[in-house]
C-alpha cells in the first residue's frame, strides 16, 4: 500500500516536472525560463527524496541538500545578472 502511494506521488511529481519543462521550453522571456528552472530544481529535490525512499538509502538526502544549495545559488546569480547589477 505504501509502495503504491509512493509510486502515485512520483507520478504526480513527474507530471509537474513536465509542465515546468514545457514552460522552460516555451519561454517567452528569459525570466519565465529562470522561474521554470527554479521550479524544476525544487521538483528534482523531491525526486531525489522519493528515490531515497524507494531505494531505502539515506545518503541520497545529502545529495538533495547540496543540490538545493547549488540550485539556489544559481537562480540568485542569474537573477542578479538579469537585473543588471552585481
Amino acid at each position, binding site marked *: 500500500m505504501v509502495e503504491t502511494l509512493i509510486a502515485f*506521488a512520483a507520478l504526480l511529481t513527474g507530471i*509537474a516536472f513536465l509542465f515546468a519543462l514545457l*514552460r522552460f521550453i516555451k519561454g517567452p522571456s528569459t*525570466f519565465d525560463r529562470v*522561474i521554470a528552472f527554479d521550479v524544476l530544481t525544487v521538483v528534482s529535490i523531491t525526486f531525489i527524496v522519493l528515490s531515497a525512499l524507494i531505494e531505502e538509502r539515506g545518503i541520497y*538526502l545529502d545529495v538533495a*541538500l547540496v543540490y*538545493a544549495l547549488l540550485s539556489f545559488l544559481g*537562480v540568485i546569480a542569474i537573477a542578479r545578472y538579469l537585473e*543588471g547589477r552585481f
Partner: protein
Amino acid sequence: MESLLDMTGGLLLVAGAAFLLLGGLGLWRMPDLFNRIQAGAKTTTLGTILILAGTAFLHPEWGFKLLLIGLFLLFTNPLSSQVLARAAHRRGIETSPKTSVDLLADSLSEQDMPEKLPSEKTLSDKGIEEKS
C-alpha cells in the same frame, strides 16, 4: 497490516505531490510572469515540505537531514522568487492586462528612485541600431 505511521506518511507524500502538480499547472497556465512566480514558488515550497514530512513519517531515523532540507527550502525559496520578481520589475516586464495595482512602482516613484533600467526589447533595438 501496515502501521498508522506508514499510512500517514504515504498520504502526506501524495498531498505534497498534488501541490507540486498544481504548481506546475499554474506555471503553465498563468497569464503573466508575476503570476507564474507566485504559482511556482508558493506551491512548490508547501509541496516539498509536505513530501519531506511524509518521508520523515516513513523513516523517522532520517528526521534531522529532512528537517535541514526543509528549513533550507523554507528560507531560500521565497528569497529567490522575490529576487526574480524584483529583477523582472526593474527590467520592465509587461504585466497581464488584468493587473490593476502595482504597489512597487508607486512606492518607487514616491521615494524618487532612479529610473527603471531599459527593458530587454529596447536593449536589443539599440544593439541593432549600433550595428547598422
